[in-house]
């Protein structure tokens, strides 16, 4: 889910100011408290982005002028967000224990990892689930371990064997009813297939400390690349939190640009990094020009072929079109056919878990894709 960020007006200016809090070059705003309707719009956007903690920080730092009533509202919503985040962190520890017991290598990724890895205060980065990247060669073992520990898979595999060969992730409800996403890859579609997931495990893991325990996370360059893929290809319009992740990493992490370049050249993802930086500039209005990464990836235009492929990740039916576009990255005619057949003819359990009949599934996909025309 993502929100459309207001393009102009007091709410847009305030939103940019809050979302760019403490980032170099971000605009600041001062003035009287927002009117009630504007305030409601700001609050709705920050809630949808799970950035209530960032809003509270903006109030605490005086970046945002609020009435006493608005301050209390911010306090309440930020506390509610903190409660959710803490419950999810407890689930991180649970998942880590399950995977460790099954001897499956993993890396904590996305929200919980980024909140503790790159943000100066984890309350600035809310999240909605637990994301774990597992060793792709042990995918089936990881799924078995999570289910054996009491989690329930929410959407069945599209076809038998699809996940281990082509899948990106699987979503589970833990015994405490928190959402757990096991990831096998970074994103759907061609750019996901071009990533060599084994490389993500090649370098020694860094760690974050949660509840007194150290959990492995990706290296700094891999973390940056993943954040860019999430920002550029994950949602349309992009999540502000994902854009902020990219900016936080650029401003607060020492990146080896040669390593970043080497990774994305091998993964054909240079254009993804370029687009992510463009989006950060556009939505957060921060200046990346002086950063090493900004200088390395910010100046060249994006190639036409990449524009075409990245367009499949945007607009109505993008879940279908990006997966369909993935066929260009699959090697071998037999594999391409197997992939396309799986997408076109899902097994019954997958359709049931999504509430579709076979005909209804095709109709839904067709309507969504037709909405692009």
């Amino acid at each position: 889910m993502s929100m459309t960020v207001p393009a102009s007006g007091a709410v847009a200016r305030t939103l940019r100011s809050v979302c760019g809090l403490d980032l170099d070059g971000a605009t600041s705003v001062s003035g009287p408290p927002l009117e009630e309707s504007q305030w409601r719009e700001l609050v709705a956007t920050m809630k949808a982005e799970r950035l209530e903690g960032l809003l509270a920080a903006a109030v605490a730092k005086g970046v945002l002028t609020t009435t006493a009533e608005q301050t209390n509202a911010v306090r309440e919503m930020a506390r509610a967000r903190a409660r959710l985040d803490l419950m999810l962190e407890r689930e991180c520890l649970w998942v880590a224990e399950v995977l460790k017991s099954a001897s499956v290598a993993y890396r904590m990724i996305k929200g919980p990892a980024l909140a503790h890895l790159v943000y100066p205060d984890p309350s600035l980065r809310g999240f909605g689930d637990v994301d774990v990247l597992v060793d792709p060669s042990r995918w089936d073992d990881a799924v078995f371990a999570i289910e054996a520990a009491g989690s329930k898979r929410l959407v069945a595999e599209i076809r038998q064997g699809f996940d281990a060969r082509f899948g990106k992730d699987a979503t589970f409800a833990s015994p405490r009813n928190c959402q757990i996403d096991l990831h096998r890859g970074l994103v759907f579609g061609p750019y996901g297939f071009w990533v060599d997931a084994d490389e993500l495990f090649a370098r020694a893991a860094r760690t974050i400390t949660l509840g007194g325990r150290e959990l492995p996370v990706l290296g700094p360059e891999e973390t940056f690349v993943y954040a860019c893929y999430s920002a550029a290809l994950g949602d349309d319009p992009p999540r502000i939190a994902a854009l902020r992740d990219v900016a936080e990493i650029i401003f607060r992490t020492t990146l080896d640009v040669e390593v970043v370049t080497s990774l994305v050249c091998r993964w054909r993802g240079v254009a993804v990094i370029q687009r992510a930086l463009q989006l950060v500039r556009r939505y957060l209005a921060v200046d990346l020009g002086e950063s090493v990464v900004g200088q390395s990836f910010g100046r060249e235009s994006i190639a036409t072929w990449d524009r075409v492929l990245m367009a499949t990740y945007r607009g109505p039916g993008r879940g279908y079109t990006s997966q369909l576009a993935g066929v260009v990255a699959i090697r071998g005619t037999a594999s391409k056919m197997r992939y396309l057949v799986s997408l076109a003819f899902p097994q019954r359990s997958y359709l049931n878990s999504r509430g579709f009949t076979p005909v209804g599934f095709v109709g839904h996909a067709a309507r969504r894709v037709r909405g692009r025309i």
Partner: protein
Amino acid sequence: MAHSDSGRTVVPRRSRAGATAAVDRSSRSWRRSDSVLWRQILDDVVLLPSESDLDPFALAGGAELWSLLRERRDLSALIASLYPGVQSSETRRDELLLLLSDLERTGAVEVTES
């Protein structure tokens, strides 16, 4: 630093009968448990001991106390830091002891007997 049940502070508390157990514990010192998960929101702290099945709970206005508990401190040191220049009253001392006792019971803080 406040501790009230008026809708803001929600540290899981004992019954009134349990509360009487908060006797003088001046020989004790407290620090944050390593296993507690927490967030600071403005001057509040939200806590969740990771090894418990509790729901997260808030320590309204507790940011300063939580900051002090980064290191092991006894009651006198906590009172001196929280209420500088103010003569400690029995009520204030008892309230703080009760709060620490509640936090200890949830697993949010560790206690050491000297």
